[in-house]
């Protein structure tokens, strides 16, 4: 594995220009000051109630995601490259989903194998031939990006279902501004606080044509036991919309209503943070208590917009991911600005053979997995784990892809004995409405707090950082 790209320090141990002022400031700090601020930040997070749940840990249903007080800095030029790449990618993703549920040109062209679509559990036959407003399926995407050198950014994963984390982006900034006013005054940091307004504008722009001038938008949550519940209530609050659960909604004559103290009120747009499977017990899982009976029929009648659309999961599994460069080329006729990580599809025999021969060097992921669960990091795994994966790969090759172990870039991070580089990724949030693609500068930086670790997922001991895009 090549050495990781250090976002702060150039080869000669001198900070890159964007980080120079931060380095000065760190040098001026009295000893233990960073630790003191970290404690203060944790106190503020706990007070605000910003917690997440870790599945499988009964005793601690509420935990804080560790927050690192040293910001991550991107220059405007770096960000512009990423932004253009994201806009391009989301246009391709939307065109692809429209095609999959429409004419299926891409299958006829033989670019993506059919079984990848029709045997994909995220494929929704109900959506075939279904119109969605303005042909936009993914209104909110979280595209995970990693950096490997000064101008190479890879897309690691497209999240086109119900991506989460944006509340941390917003809260991290709020708390940083409270704690580090001096540091902000020395930098020109592009704001992110307009995200809720951009999100609301996006959601309203895709309301059904029949909705009135000021459509009613709600946020549908599975409820307080969901790991992202804090985010749901946080966003509903910032957007000034009702936070509803399935039982707050009902469908009559193909129209969705919410139960209010003034009686039923029609709903036009549902920003749903519930997976497809649980949306409507009549259409999908009959045992779902989270959804709204009849919701799919109202959706199919075009009386309500679901955001994101149903069935967008066909675009974000890891097997489809490996075809993204070709998909993008097919619909846009352009070269991808953001590269894909080279990926071996274990479904293909020669790829599988290579993967089995090089397991110790590769990262192996489940095609339908997420959250850093069920993955193998070859270089750091012990022999037994590697052997177990070898067996799984042989048994179910289709379920896996493999990638080289990437040297994720590092950023300065507060650690026990000062500041040290740690590996990071970036999740920007891409909003796509009728009128525009909107991306607030930056996104959520996740950091692997353990020295040498490459796993940034919060469920696996990762933390977050504020992400600064500097206007020059």
């Amino acid at each position, binding site marked *: 594995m090549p050495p990781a790209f250090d976002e702060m320090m150039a080869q000669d141990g001198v900070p890159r220009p964007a980080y120079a002022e931060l380095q000065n400031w760190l040098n001026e700090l009295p000893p233990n000051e960073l630790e003191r601020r970290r404690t203060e930040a944790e106190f503020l997070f*706990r*007070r605000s*109630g910003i917690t997440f749940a870790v599945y499988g840990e009964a005793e601690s249903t509420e935990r804080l995601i560790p927050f690192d007080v040293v910001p991550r800095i991107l220059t405007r030029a770096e960000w512009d490259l990423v932004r253009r790449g994201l806009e391009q990618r989301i246009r391709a993703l939307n065109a692809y989903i429209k095609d999959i549920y429409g004419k299926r040109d891409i299958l006829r062209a033989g670019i993506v194998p059919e079984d990848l679509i029709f045997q994909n559990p995220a494929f929704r036959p109900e959506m075939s031939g279904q119109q969605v407003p303005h042909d936009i399926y993914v209104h909110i995407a979280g595209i995970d990006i990693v950096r490997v050198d000064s101008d190479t950014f890879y897309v690691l994963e497209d999240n086109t279902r119900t991506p989460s984390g944006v509340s941390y982006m917003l809260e991290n900034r709020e708390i940083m501004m409270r704690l580090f006013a001096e540091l902000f005054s020395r930098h020109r940091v592009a704001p992110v606080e307009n995200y809720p307004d951009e999100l609301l504008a996006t959601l309203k722009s895709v309301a059904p044509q029949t909705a009135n001038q000021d459509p009613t938008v709600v946020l549908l949550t599975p*409820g*307080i036991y969901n790991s992202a*519940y804090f985010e749901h*209530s*946080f966003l*509903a*609050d910032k957007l000034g919309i*009702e*936070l*509803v*659960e399935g*039982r*707050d909604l009902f469908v009559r004559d193909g129209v969705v209503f*919410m*139960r*209010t*103290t*003034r009686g039923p009120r029609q709903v036009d747009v549902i920003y749903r943070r519930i997976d497809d499977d649980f949306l409507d017990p009549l259409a999908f899982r009959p045992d779902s208590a989270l959804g709204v009976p009849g919701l799919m029929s109202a959706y199919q009648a075009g009386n309500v917009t679901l955001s994101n659309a149903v069935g967008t999961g066909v675009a974000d599994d890891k097997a489809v991911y490996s075809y993204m460069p070709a998909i993008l080329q097919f619909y846009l006729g352009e070269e991808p600005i953001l590269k894909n990580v080279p990926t071996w599809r274990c479904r293909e025999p020669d790829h599988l053979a290579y993967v089995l021969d090089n397991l110790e060097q590769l990262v192996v992921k489940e095609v339908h997995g997420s959250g850093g669960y069920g993955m193998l990091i070859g270089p750091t795994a012990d022999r037994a784990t590697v052997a177990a994966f070898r067996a799984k790969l042989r048994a179910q090759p289709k379920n896996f892809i493999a990638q080289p172990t990437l040297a994720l870039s590092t950023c300065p991070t507060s650690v026990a004995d000062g500041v040290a580089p740690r590996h990071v990724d970036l999740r920007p949030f891409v909003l796509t409405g009728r009128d525009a693609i909107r991306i607030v500068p930056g996104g959520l930086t996740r950091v692997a707090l353990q020295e040498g670790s490459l796993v940034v997922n919060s469920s696996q001991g990762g933390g977050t950082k504020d992400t600064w895009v500097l206007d020059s």
Partner: protein
Amino acid sequence: MLSRTADNLYWLARYMERADYLARVLQAAQRLSAMPSAYVGASNEWESAVATAGCTRAFYENYEDANETNVTHFLAFSADNPSSIRNCFQVARTNARAVRIALTSAMWDAINGAWLELQRYGNGPTSREDNSRFLRWVQDASSLFDGAAYRTMLRSDSYWFSRLGVHIERADNTARILDVKYHLLLPAQERVGGALDYFQWSAILRSVNAQTSYHWVYRENIKPWLVADLLILNEQMPRSMAACYANLVQNLDHISMAYGRAGPSQRRARAIRTRLQNSRMEEIFSSGLHEFIVDFIADNNALGGDITRQYLL
């Protein structure tokens, strides 16, 4: 607003109010039980505390003996008692999380802070002194929440529904104290105990935070029928049944004006208030204090049912 949100606000307020009341009941019982029986009689204060809290049956399903340790634990910390102080705070915070966006940050801080602080007490206070501090703290936490709501909430339906919760609960609590102690409040000529009951009457006043108010209103020594008058008919007294109904009528009127429509809740609240306004203590005593209170508790519950059906489902 969402019916579920209104329902959560309503119950959140009820639970915070109930926690405060339970703390007062326990304080009063502690005071009485610490006095020599020559002053307060031989009655079991802990048993009547359980009755006043309205959970006699649940208590005896868990314990044989109503003594200080058992009752304090059951009313304050027991996980088996759905209305223990700990569970009140627990449920209040769960409701608060579910309606975060309808709460002001000051209200959330008050509830979340109380819940975090509660964790420090573990399985309960470890000594009498610790217990007194705990009960004092419960009242502070409840006041802080109430004050935060009063000072920071928009005067809109969210606020009115939360006020309905406070006053339905408070009316119920006051009526329950009277129901358990009514025999102590009958006019002097019907009483046998005499001076023994003085400390009992003052304990009743204490459990509704009215010992000072009593003297300001009546400028007399404590007399049982005046205690009853204060708690039932006096609208100046914030925890009296009459004052609760003045508030309930007012808040229901705000809602019906904002929504442009009144219903069964408004009608019933007004009828109950009118009955209280037209009652005289002498008539209440002559037709039976106990019956009067039992009817009131039933009416108050019926109003809770009306509010639920009209707005919260």
